[in-house]
């Protein structure tokens, strides 16, 4: 490995795109992969072994819904015996109590349960299914097991005013960590953006509340808040920098530097069916494309913050400017920032009454 290359720390394993929920903000790509294309248990097991050998510490099982894989227990065992820390990111469906016990027995380290809201009504609206009650049941079952529990709430205009209720759910559970993640706008979220972006006033209120609650809960629950980057001054260091820390494998085995990379035209992705994790990490042209700084344009090229945020998100640059190598337009220094300001102006001009009407959501379908 060349000395400038760091090793990946986490492997994001999108085990399947199948999912019983239909979240309107789902970060999955619009083009979902089918069951027939999914990798076998054996291939995944080899990938976990290879990932561990290049220095990966953690496997994030995600999707779609990872529990939709009937071999999920074998996959947990395989990742664990490869020496990885195993994290399950799940909607909690389909799951029953014996299955949960078996997952922990198989070596699951961390259970991240995602909620679509604090109340049944909004959660079911956002997920397009009746799923909220099941999540509350799963929280009860989790008390009986030695596994770390994180609650994940994806935050947007229609639930950002319910943060206190969400924290109450967390406090009455065995969770040691809560993630409030404002929607990132790609995949289905980008299609529904107009109805998801919070107003400036909502955001300011939520920030004040979170700061207060983080203090109050210190030592009990770690509260993390990911702010919506459209409102930020600088972009976030997307994925810790392109091809610096993470590798994502899609259900069919393509290796991507981030969730949304397939929106960038012209990139060719390697498949773990044909190449080892090490070969891909070191040589994939798609990984090389935006690694380091050579690809940067002004103002990033000479900016002091380029080692901190790596110029932001490449997919967001593509989606909002048409050029994947542009400065992320959420950056206040970006020449294209006015585009983002115009979007925000539209949102903030909307009359508040709109909040009470259910928007014409575009729901994420379940692939076959």
């Amino acid at each position, binding site marked *: 490995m060349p000395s400038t290359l760091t090793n990946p720390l986490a492997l994001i394993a999108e085990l399947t795109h199948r999912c019983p929920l239909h979240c309107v903000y789902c970060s999955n790509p619009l083009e979902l992969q089918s069951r027939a294309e999914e990798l076998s248990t054996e291939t995944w097991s080899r990938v976990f072994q290879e990932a561990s050998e290049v220095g990966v*510490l953690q496997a994030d099982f995600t999707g779609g819904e990872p529990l939709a894989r009937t071999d999920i227990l074998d996959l947990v065992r395989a990742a664990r015996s490869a020496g990885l*820390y195993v*994290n399950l990111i799940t909607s909690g469906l389909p799951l029953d109590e014996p299955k949960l016990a078996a997952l922990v027995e198989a070596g699951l*380290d961390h259970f991240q349960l995602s909620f679509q809201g604090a109340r049944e009504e909004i959660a079911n609206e956002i997920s397009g299914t009746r799923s909220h009650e099941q999540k509350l049941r799963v929280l009860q079952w989790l008390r009986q*097991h030695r596994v770390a529990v*994180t609650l994940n709430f994806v935050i947007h205009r229609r639930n950002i005013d319910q943060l206190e209720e969400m924290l109450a759910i967390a406090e009455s559970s065995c969770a*040691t960590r809560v993630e409030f993640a404002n929607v990132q706008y790609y995949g289905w979220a980008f299609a529904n953006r107009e109805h998801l972006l919070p107003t400036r006033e909502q955001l300011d209120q939520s920030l004040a509340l979170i700061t207060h609650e983080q203090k109050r809960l210190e*030592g009990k629950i*770690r509260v993390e808040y990911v702010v919506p980057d459209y409102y930020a001054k600088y972009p976030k260091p997307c994925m810790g920098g392109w091809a610096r820390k993470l590798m994502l494998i899609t259900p069919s085995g393509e290796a991507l530097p981030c969730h949304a990379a397939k929106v960038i035209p012209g990139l060719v992705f390697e498949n773990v069916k044909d190449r080892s994790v090490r070969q891909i990490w070191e040589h994939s042209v798609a990984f090389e494309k935006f690694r380091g700084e050579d690809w940067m344009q002004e103002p990033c090229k000479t900016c002091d913050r380029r080692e901190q945020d790596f110029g932001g998100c490449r997919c967001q640059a593509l989606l909002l400017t048409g050029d994947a190598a542009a400065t992320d337009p959420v950056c206040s220094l970006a020449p294209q920032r006015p585009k983002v300001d115009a979007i925000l102006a539209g949102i903030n001009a909307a009359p508040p009454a709109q909040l009470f009407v259910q928007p014409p959501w575009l729901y994420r379908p379940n692939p076959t």
Partner: protein
Amino acid sequence: MVPDTNSKPRLAPGCRLGENNQQRVLLMPERALRLLGPSLEIIERCDGQHTIQQIIADLQKIYSKAEPQKVEQDILGYLALLQKERALDFEP
């Protein structure tokens, strides 16, 4: 929040020792800490069996060249940091 020095720290669920490139690491939800010398000695004793006082006494012996007061402060500081990360439970 300062834990009682008679309590017995134990790694919280989902926090465990691992290895990476021949180095010991503390694996936690969404975080990993590299463990060197004293930090490894401390973590290895966070097993729900040793009281904080015992951990302090043990390390004062191992690091007998260091000022005992300093060793104690460092340990309490490190345990407080891990508590903030929610990596420890304190058993009575």
